[in-house]
């Protein structure tokens, strides 16, 4: 197959292919054709990319010949221009929110492989880009918070007095939340964490942090795929009230709560944030899907009147773009390797992974929930 990558938007430093992925794809017999200047966001020159095995061609040419086009974020419909019908567009397609992109794919007869739809099985984990990026985002969130807050995270007993350890509160303990907990613990903070799924309590404790229990009235489960179920309004209210107390005594709050296919739940309102000490930091990892925190803006830093900084981390993991690209490109490579075992796409009816990720095929959207959403907003 001939593989290319569509350039990322200017505020996105991650790349969908970097040298190790190029090498691997070439070894598998694929040809990688990249638009000149593709590596610039990561200081990768055209020479470096060709040395790894890529053919550097003018952008238009890259599109024209491509059979697979890799993307980091859902491409603007305009940027799909020039791709041949039947070409696979593979990457984050944000199916529930980037509806124009999905529509454009279908209309142009392109085929969309959406990595967000990857099954969360043990086997598929090497192709699970949501996990790989969330993991780095969790790390980056803590590092950012540590840099922004005006105190140190660890406890220090010094001749000038003892500095108490900072309190970090992680809300939502998926992959990102776990890594955030681990990183904050490493830096010596006292970490509390909370999630609606009770199974994560053990995982939280396995990292040495404390799991905060709120009384929500009833137990909340998870879907088969491991995603959280949505809470009722009343449950959300109870949770908010009890959480405000924990938030008030925290120096850093990191929120990562997502519900698959929906806007992120609003966990902290202005009142809760208002209870925090001036100088405290809130990092909202869900900012781009609506935000867990009232007032958070994706990609921006907002300082409240009370002196609390709310950082809407976006795009995910962009602050560790080099490693994020490494992981992401490896995920895509694994996917290509799995889906085209010998140049031929596995049939969706036989392969669970292809069935799950193949979002747009033959001009149609294959995923029911996405279809519903599109109809609703049409």
């Amino acid at each position: 197959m001939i593989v290319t990558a569509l350039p990322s938007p200017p505020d996105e430093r991650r790349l969908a292919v970097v040298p190790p992925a190029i090498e691997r794809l070439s070894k598998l017999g694929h040809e990688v054709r990249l638009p000149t200047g593709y590596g610039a966001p990561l200081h990768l020159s055209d020479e470096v990319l060709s040395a790894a095995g890529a053919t550097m061609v003018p952008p238009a040419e890259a599109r024209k010949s491509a059979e697979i086009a890799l993307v980091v974020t859902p491409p603007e419909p305009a940027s799909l221009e020039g791709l041949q019908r039947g070409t696979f567009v593979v990457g984050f397609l944000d199916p529930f929110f980037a509806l124009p992109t999905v529509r454009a794919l279908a209309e142009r007869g392109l085929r969309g492989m959406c990595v967000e739809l990857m099954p969360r099985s043990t086997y598929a984990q090497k192709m699970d880009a949501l996990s790989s990026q969330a993991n780095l985002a969790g790390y980056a969130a803590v590092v950012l918070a540590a840099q922004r807050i005006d105190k140190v995270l660890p406890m220090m007993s010094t001749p000038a007095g003892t500095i108490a350890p900072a309190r970090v509160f992680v809300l939502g303990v998926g992959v990102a939340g776990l890594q955030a907990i681990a990183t904050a613990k490493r830096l010596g903070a006292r970490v509390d964490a909370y999630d609606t799924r009770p199974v994560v309590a053990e995982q939280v404790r396995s990292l040495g942090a404390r799991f905060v229990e709120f009384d929500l009235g009833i137990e909340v489960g998870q879907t088969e795929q491991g995603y959280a179920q949505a809470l009722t309004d009343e449950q959300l209210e109870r949770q908010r009230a009890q959480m405000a107390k924990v938030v008030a005594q925290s120096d850093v709050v990191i929120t990562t709560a997502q519900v698959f296919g929906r806007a992120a739940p609003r966990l902290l309102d202005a009142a809760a944030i208002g209870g925090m000490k001036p100088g405290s930091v809130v990092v909202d990892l869900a900012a781009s899907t609506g935000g867990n925190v009232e007032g958070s803006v994706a990609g921006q830093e907002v300082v409240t009147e009370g002196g609390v900084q709310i950082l809407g981390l976006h795009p995910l993991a962009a602050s560790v773009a080099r490693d994020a690209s490494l992981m992401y490109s490896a995920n895509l490579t694994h996917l290509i390797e799995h889906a085209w075992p010998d140049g031929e796409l596995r049939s969706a009816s036989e392969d669970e992974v292809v069935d799950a990720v193949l979002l747009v095929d033959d001009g149609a959207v294959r995923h029911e929930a996405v279809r519903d959403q599109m109809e609703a907003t049409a």
Partner: protein
Amino acid sequence: MAAWQTFAYILASILFIMGLKMLGRAETAKRGNRLSAVGMLIAVIATLAAGGLDYTWIVLGLVIGGAIGAVAARRVQMTGMPEMVALLNGSGGLASMLVGTAEYVRVPEVPAFSAVAIMLTVLIGGIAASGSVVAFGKLSERIDGKPYLFRGQKVLNASLLALALLAAAVVVIDAAVIGNVGGVTAAFVLVLLLALALGVLAVIPIGGADMPIVVSLLNSYSGIAAAAAGFVIDNNVLVVAGSLVGASGLILTNIMCKAMNRSLANVLFGGFGAEITAGGAAAEGVVKPLTPEDAYFILEAAGSVVFVPGYGMAVAQAQHVVAELADLLVKNGADVRHAIHPVAGRMPGHMNVLLAEANVPYEQLVEPGDVNPNMETIDVAIVIGANDVVNPAAKEDPTSPLWGMPIIEVDRARTCFVLKRSMNPGFAGVDNLLFFKDNTRMIFGDAKATITGMVAAFKDA
């Protein structure tokens, strides 16, 4: 002795051996005690069944003794156990002494070897008997618990012992050369009286706090007395059971000594140890080293422990084992804290980094001000490669460069372990008087190795 009787005695001995072994482990202790009781029953029955005895007095003795023993055992308060054991041990010693005497009286011609055995029985049994009574008195506070001391005590005890041995020699020679001239000689009575006196004199100078050790030692003595009695009446089960108790009692005594941070010699020679302590002269210049193994016995019995880490913990990278030891101590029921001095280590927060790495809970970390006020109540302070931050010169020596700096006052803890590789001073280059304090024990060597040793001792228990 009939073969069946020997077999019964062998069986009894096996039960004693297994019983003793099992008594040393919490899970099996109960069963061990019962096994050994069955062994005793078998031994008694085998003895009675051998026949040739006039049972009247025996049965009378058994009934009276049994009744007294049973009632006493039932009545005694849980808190009064040690003194009860002392009394029981006293009667055991007394019994052995009487058996020896009776044999001496009964047999017209005692061979020299038997005479030696008899004298040992009487001497050791007598000491165990009277010593136990004094120990009982001290434990139950019928006698003042303070050590009774007077000049020349050592000399007196030594002379009395010499006299007793001399008198015993006379008896033996009597027996060997001219034969036992039927009945108790003056020399024999002298040995008897001196034994009783020695028991009193040996125990009286020892402080009440050491009494449990003394009782354990006297228990070992009465075991040996029983073994000696076994030689007197040529009875194997007495020899076996007595020697077992004698030897294992000595080991137990040693274990107890270590748990109380005393040396056996100190207790063995009674008053001597007490006298030095009483003298109270600051033992400056004398360093008391300890092995990690011995340290275990003290830690095992400690109710509150404070760790004081310093730069040496960092150098040894001992933080993980320290955390593990702390864990074990907590599991053992001790109250454990880590006192971090502000200048410990080589950078502010040095100890925090290490202890956080080892996952020591923040709740266990305290500042000097939190432990100093109650330092007297701390059973053990473990100084791990710290030096300047625990140097009492800061409060005792106005000429010291450390003068005036608040320190962690481990010198006031009940016991203080100092773990370091040598007597070298720390960063400030100031010698440390802590190392010479009475309650300080130096554990030399790399701190990690030392603590690893303590941990091993714990896990092995």
